């Protein structure tokens, strides 16, 4: 029963990982862009929510209405003003720019908010849960997080497959030069994609902040989890991202069972090992396209 509970809680945590992975997956899918500042942006989003909730005395859930548009605009501007200049056959400039950006965000947050841990307080719902059996109870917050992840991914899937924007994203992903011949402004489309990526990662950051305490230097760990979820699920697959997130969450949940004997690193360590096992045996991911 204890193990089953670990799996259930892992699935809930996996929802958060999938939410983190979504933005990374979008940027890679549309423009083969790997954003190493992704995790730090999530933490930045959470800190923006801290300021918004205390400044406007809003509930953290409501603060999303402010935080998400801010991050969307930031992503759009960042791509147009900086990232677009690094897109080439050589991946080095984009890696360096985003890696540098991540380090700058981390240290700027340390300067602004100090190294103290923070949390986003949503009231009594934080401790409420649904009791399934004597040994298994699902917290409302993890459940809402998982639901949000599924909703974001469903929305993304619908946008990609049904709208003209989604069609343009897929066309640019296939072949940007030919997409330009259709009158598609690929650079502007990249900015839209990065805006969406920033928005989803801000949602992930706020949910992280509601679920647990966080600090300015927590970003890289979130980047690694997001990346692992994307690779486990398979590059370029929306549902792969969800599956990858859930599997990674289960690995963390099961690894957590060894906390007493091994230490607090056991959850993340088992997560990393599952990722490496997938990389060793099926590098294209479980649901990946062969060409990705």
């Amino acid at each position, binding site marked *: 029963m204890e193990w089953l509970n670990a799996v259930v809680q892992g699935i809930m945590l996996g929802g958060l990982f999938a939410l983190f992975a979504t933005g990374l997956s979008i940027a890679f899918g549309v423009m083969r862009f790997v954003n190493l500042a992704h995790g730090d942006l999530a933490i930045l989003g959470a800190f923006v929510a801290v300021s918004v909730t205390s400044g406007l005395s809003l509930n953290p859930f409501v603060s999303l209405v402010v935080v998400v548009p801010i991050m969307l605009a930031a992503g759009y501007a960042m791509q147009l003003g900086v990232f677009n200049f690094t897109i080439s056959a050589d991946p080095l400039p984009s890696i360096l720019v985003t890696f540098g950006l991540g380090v700058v965000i*981390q240290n700027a947050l340390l300067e602004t908010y100090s190294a103290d841990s923070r949390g986003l307080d949503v009231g009594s719902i934080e401790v409420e849960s649904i009791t399934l059996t004597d040994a298994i109870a699902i917290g409302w917050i993890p459940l809402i997080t998982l639901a949000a992840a599924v909703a974001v991914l469903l929305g993304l899937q619908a946008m990609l497959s049904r709208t003209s924007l989604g069609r343009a994203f897929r066309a640019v992903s296939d072949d940007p030069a030919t997409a330009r011949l259709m009158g598609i402004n690929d650079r502007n489309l990249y900015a839209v994609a990065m805006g969406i990526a920033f928005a989803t990662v801000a949602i992930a950051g706020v949910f992280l902040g509601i679920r647990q305490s966080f600090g300015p230097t927590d970003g890289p760990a979130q980047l690694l989890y997001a990346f692992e979820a994307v690779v486990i699920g398979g590059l370029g697959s929306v549902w792969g991202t969800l599956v990858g997130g859930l599997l990674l969450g289960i690995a963390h949940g099961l690894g957590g069972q060894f906390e007493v004997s091994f*230490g607090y690193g056991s959850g993340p360590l088992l997560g*990393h090992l599952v990722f490496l096992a997938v990389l060793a045996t099926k590098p294209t991911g479980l649901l990946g396209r062969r060409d990705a």
Partner: protein
Amino acid sequence: MSEHRVTRSDRQSRFGLATFAVLLAVLALLPWWDSDGSLRVPLVAILYYLALAQMWNLLAGFAGLVSIGQQMFVGIGVYTLLSFAEDFGVDPYLSVLLAGLVAAVLSLPVAALAFRLRGGYFAIGTWVIAEVFRLIALESGFLGGANVRTMTRASLGGYSVDTRNTVTYLLALGLAAGATAIVVLVLRSRLGLALRSIRDNAEGARGLGVSVTRAKLVVWVISAFWTGMTGAVILLHNPSTRAESAFSVLRWTALVVFIAIIGGVGSTTGPIIGVVIYWCVREFLEDAEEWRFIILGLIAAAMAVAAPRGVYGLLQKRWTVQFFPVRRRLVGPGVGAPAPPDEIRTPSQPPK
């Protein structure tokens, strides 16, 4: 026999080599006139950062392996030294060599996994693997990474403080000079030619029988070996550590990357310029570590967009300088003026 030959040196690069030989000699003799160590002690950090930057430069600038996991080899070096010298009583200086060997051996399985990823995903993949090593060091009772561990007097052998400081300084100098020499030698070797052909056109290089993976693997192992030894020397210099600092991505990769980028990645001289700039920034912002990272990070990010070949690349645009003889040129009757200096030639991209 033809009068034409391929040469790598010219008057300028011979002058450059001579300058560096003199500089190296002065630095090597430093312990004998800097008796109180006021120059040597701060120099050690500059020197080991140069060694780390050259090794990252070798990977990212020449082999296309943009690693964000260099902290794993530093950490492996640190804990190998601790284990051998502190726990098993092996001579500390022999343990430095062993630290490099252990890092080199462990780099093989790391490569087997990470080489399946490309570009940005390779970068994050190496970071994940570095995290695995950090977590193992952190949670393992034997290595004791959760607590501060210190190289005790006993494990440092019977050497006096003065001797230890001098040896640490000379080791750091040797690692820095050696790292630079390794980059020069690799570029001059067949391996360097293979790497260049891979960088210009990986498919074409494969077609010519260049084993892309083998060439990258050799460079990867060399870099791990040298970075591991550097990690051990870092512990000799600063004998207390724990897993968080031994495997710190900020200290052992981010700073190193910034130094290489600002100075100029893909050249042998760039990291030397970068480390000098780092020294200046550190002097100005001695007590503000966050601001140091913010300023260096912003400069590096701006450089990556606007001047991908760093300060060295900017200098080269104005003056044709080449210090190290790494470029091959054809000389002889009828061969025109030497080609413009392009240690890194970015191939113009024909559209798809």
